[in-house]
């Protein structure tokens, strides 16, 4: 039976169609009419994967929500909550999730000050019976990089500059306001 084995040239359909038109392939294959009636969204043509060079970046966006800022503050203050995460349950609400819901409710009621909202949400959860224990040392990404910086020999200064830049880019806006404060607190004690 005649056929064309050039998988890099066109799609399966175009090759078969042209072979039939030329009279080389006598019998229409089973799938031909079905493909004709219901073609795929994209022609299955071979493409060579090319690498991206220089500053070209992929167009995929990061997914962030407004609630992520609240979550970040919660985790830095309280660590992961008192309750373990039950991933088997699709409708599971973690402590952080409940905190975020309270926070948003209070925000809708008209409060604007973030510190106040944070404290009020904590109090509301306490009223419901959830006890939140503050971490001994408030944990942030900046803290993490600082600890590693101190453990290295002080001569390696270029690396510290590199370490600082990535955390600052990833961390959302409110964290940036907190970070310089944290930095001075971290440097002064020892």
């Amino acid at each position, binding site marked *: 039976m005649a056929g064309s084995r050039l998988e890099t040239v066109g799609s399966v359909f175009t090759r078969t169609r042209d072979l039939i038109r030329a009279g080389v392939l006598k019998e229409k294959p089973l*799938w031909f009419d*079905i493909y004709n*009636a219901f073609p795929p969204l994209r022609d299955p043509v071979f493409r060579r994967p090319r690498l991206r060079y220089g500053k070209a970046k992929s167009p995929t966006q*990061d997914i962030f929500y407004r609630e992520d800022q609240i979550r970040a503050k919660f985790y830095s203050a309280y660590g992961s909550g008192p309750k373990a995460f039950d991933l088997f349950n699709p409708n599971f609400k973690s402590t952080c999730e409940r905190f975020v819901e309270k926070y948003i409710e209070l925000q809708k009621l008209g409060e604007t000050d973030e510190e106040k909202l944070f404290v009020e949400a904590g109090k509301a959860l306490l009223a419901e019976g959830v006890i939140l224990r503050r971490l001994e040392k408030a944990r942030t990404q900046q803290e993490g990089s600082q600890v590693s910086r101190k453990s290295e020999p002080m001569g390696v200064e270029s690396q510290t500059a590199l370490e600082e830049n990535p955390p600052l880019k990833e961390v959302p806006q409110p964290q940036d306001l907190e970070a310089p404060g944290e930095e001075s607190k971290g440097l002064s004690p020892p």
Partner: protein
Amino acid sequence: MASGAVLPRLLGSGVRAAPRGRAAPRGRTLGSAAAAAAPEPERDSDFSARILSEPLKHSDFFNVKELFSVRSLFNARVHLGHKAGCRHRFMEPYIFGSRLGQDIIDLEQTATHLQLALNFTAHVAYRGGIILFVSRARQFSHLIENTARSCGEYAHTRYFKGGLLTNAPLLLGPQVRLPDLIIFLHTLNNVFEPHVAVRDAAKMNIPTVGIVDTNCNPCLITYPVPGNDDSPPAVQLFCRLFQTAVTRAKEKRRQLEALYRLQGAPGPHPANPASPGVQAGLGLGVAP
């Protein structure tokens, strides 16, 4: 070895299914159906043409849309992709975004692609095409083989010998009928390279349906379905969907042929109670 035993036994049966004007009935039911269905030339070709062309006029003849929903895909964790570093460049159009470094597949697009893929599979099964399920993930090889067995089709989840498709007459014997559709539950093999069968199917002009994860190359696959191929719930969902589509299509075919037999032939073959009964009985027996 399993692969050596499975393929010749099953593909070899294609030899008995002598292709006539239309696609031959399934190898398994061949015994009774072939004996009963001696063709009356004109009416036969007229009806057979109708049987084949009628389904193509409806956009969703087998109603595959009702088998799944975006919510059911979400619950089966189909939207979870690999980390952003593993992303394949050609999968970017199908990715909704990246959550804390993990790619999330756009389920709206997955739903459209899946509907096209299931529809195509159903039509191929309706016309008596041979479907081959291919995967190289050892975690799911048993599930996929059972899926294939339950819908009366074929599976190859072991080491894929080079030349199995391209040099079939030598490896499988002369006059072997190759698959009319290959369904990939996993497009990559165990070393994270594209499965050889993707390229070989394109070479042999065999259409393919494939679940492509964020680290796969969807170019050569005729009907790619962007989705998670690593989580058990996702693979189980896909197996179930393909099995249902194939079974439905075959059942529909049996029904339409029985209908034709009851309507059509008052002459030499009066509505033979044996054959529709046998066919219906087989249908009821095989369908889950």
